[in-house]
């Protein structure tokens, strides 16, 4: 995730933070923000706000910085904190979820945890591949991505805007996600 150059940069920044230059922590955040959020996005069960967990993880790393041993693997240390934070949030969500929704959370958590050996870099790579795949989408399909993930409008509104039924919109979303899934899978396999 971080090359040698980055490693030195991070260690230097951490040293300055310890000396009282808190602004240097921004270097840490900028370096790990994307891999952290990508990792969380691929690991978080439903209902979890990944940005919230990522933010808590960075803040926890900052406040516990005296526990990090300089020169060791900061990335691994940071992600171990994030893993704890994710577990905590998953526990909270699970407790407040009712039975019907809890099973899905449980199932996904179990399945996602089975992949825990996956390195955080892998999810960042998938995120990058997804970006490429998104670029190949036809405009008509891309429109649904924007409606669903950028504008966050309801299925009914999408149906109204596109002149289709809600059932057709659901089908379209299925096709869209499946197409992107297959594209990411293919590109990732080619790179591995």
């Amino acid at each position, binding site marked *: 995730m971080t090359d040698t150059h980055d490693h030195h940069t991070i260690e230097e920044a951490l040293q300055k933070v310890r000396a009282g230059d*808190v*602004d240097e922590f*921004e270097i840490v*955040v*900028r370096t790990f*923000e*994307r891999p952290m*959020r990508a990792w969380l*996005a*691929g690991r978080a069960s439903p209902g979890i706000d*990944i940005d*919230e967990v*990522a*933010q*808590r993880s*960075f*803040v*926890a790393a*900052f*406040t*516990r*910085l*005296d*526990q990090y041993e300089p020169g060791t693997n900061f990335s691994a240390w940071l992600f171990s904190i994030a893993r*704890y934070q994710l577990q*905590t949030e998953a*526990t*909270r969500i699970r*407790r*407040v*979820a*009712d*039975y*019907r929704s*809890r*099973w*899905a959370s*449980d199932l*996904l958590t179990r*399945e*996602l945890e089975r*992949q825990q050996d996956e390195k955080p870099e892998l*999810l960042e790579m*998938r*995120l990058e591949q997804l*970006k490429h795949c*998104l670029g190949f989408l036809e405009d008509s399909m891309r429109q649904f*991505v*924007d409606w669903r*993930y*950028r504008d966050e409008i309801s299925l009914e509104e999408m149906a109204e805007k596109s002149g289709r039924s809600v059932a057709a919109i*659901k*089908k379209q*979303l*299925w096709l869209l*996600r*499946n197409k*992107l*899934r297959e594209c990411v*899978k293919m590109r990732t396999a080619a790179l591995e």
Partner: protein
Amino acid sequence: MNSDSREQFETLWTNFLEGELDDAETDLLRELLTSDEELRQMAIELYQTHRLLGLLIQEESTGNDGFIEGVMSEVLRHQESFDSRAMKRVREQAQAQSRSAPALVRQRPVPSTWHRKWMTVSMMGISLLMMIWLAGKVLRDDQRLAHRGNDGQSTTVETVEPPVKFSRVAKARFFGELTPAADSTVTLHQSYVLMSGMVELLFPGGAQAIIEGPAVFEAQPDNCLAVNLGRCSVHAPDGAEGFRVETPDTRVVDRGTRFTVDVSEFNETKIQVVEGIADIYKSASPRSASRGLRPDTLNLEVDENEFATTTGARAEEVRLRSKEAIKVLAESGFIVTPEVFDAQRHRMQLPDRVVSYTATLNEADGKSELLETVTVQRGGEEVTYAADDLIPVELIGFRVSRNQGRFDHVLGGEELVGHPAQALADHSLVTGVINPGGSVASLQSSPVLNSDPENNVLGTPGMAVRFARPVKNGPGPDIVFFEIHPLPSPADGDAFHVSPLQLTSGKKSHTIREYDLSVNSPEALPVTRMLAHEAERGEIESLAALQKAKFSLRPVRLEYRALAVGIDLSDLGYAPGEEAEGLFIQDAEDNDIYVDPVLIGGLP
């Protein structure tokens, strides 16, 4: 995977990701995924695609600067925590060593002044509140120490979420701290001891909880209220589902509902659902038997297995629906028994009352002078009235009830302007007719207003006022009454009796011993400098004598606040819609300090 199951999966998984899966579909999807490894893998990949898409589009739309700024803002907020961390660790180590000797845990330092207070408080109820509060404090400290992981790294962090607020406050008095202002922030993890009155808390998720004193409670992160003693009425509107109330023995999880939780000092928790659904679980804390608050939700060491996967599958999990009530006794096991549902126990809102007021500020000292507006909750609705809209009063009777010593009867400027009685009719909070006569007992018959001492006709001690036009009995308070009260003072405000001018046809006196805005209320504003008009002859036996009295002026040096209370004509026996011409007011003679009215106004 056959084509049928694939098609079913397409529909169901899309419904799941869109949040539209109904109960029957949930069961079907679970069966499909349980039996088909290939489908499970596909589900995971689709789910990850779905989450990564969300992240990618967010990056495209807003970049990552917002996130980084947010993190850095929080980091800076925690800078003090970082700086003091070394010292904190030293303290924690010292405390951990202390904890190795059990007797020392009970001797955990308690602020000495509080300890002294506790030792001297004679009322059993107060002692009980304090004991519970202290127990919760010690246990929370222990729990925070216990959060450290085996590797020496703490697994706890402070949460980042909008604050919990005291959204409304009604006659609330806390032990050991000032009454919070409405809309002020609740300190997370702080145990509040509400001695009397009520507060309404608003949580970030939208849930509202009304807590009635006496109560011991604590707001926790992630939309959670811990109640160690007392009653709370919760309303979780749409979107606030999942709000939790933790008691020493139970966890009540809201599913979109109104419910009431009542924790007694005898380890009993009564829970009832007014509408909607709530799930009740046995508390997660192994310390529940000793009445400590449960560990906060970020503690990773909480035993997951204490919660069954199916609601209702174990005795420790109960789902309550509308109009259902239970009692939980957790001293030996977790005993749940049905309870009689009582809608009256659920409080939908704080009582009608004077909520706040605004006033002009004196240029010299920046303190309040002329009333501008007053906000009153009437029939559950908060209404703000301009001072000009209030129905003013005219003083029509006055008599003191003691005739010795120095006595001030009028407040005002350096010179009396016109009729002394007019000092009560203006908008000023520092002019009034004060120290009327009183009686320990309230009136049982109509007061005598036409005092004529020369003909041996003595009026009833007190003061009579007539409204410029009749005041109609509407919902909640119909009249606002302001008095000034000094700081410091042994009482929260001067008690008084209020009666109709004629005690006929079901009319009655009513005694007001508590002000809506008392000395303890931040909404009771400090008033500007006043001059007291001291009657040279202390005994004022009639309104005529007050008008003719010679006064000497003296400045009032103590700091005073303007207190306010609403008077509901229903309490005086008026029927809804019935009109009152005036009021008779007497001090309740419960102490040496007499009531000091500065403004009385009818609500239009």
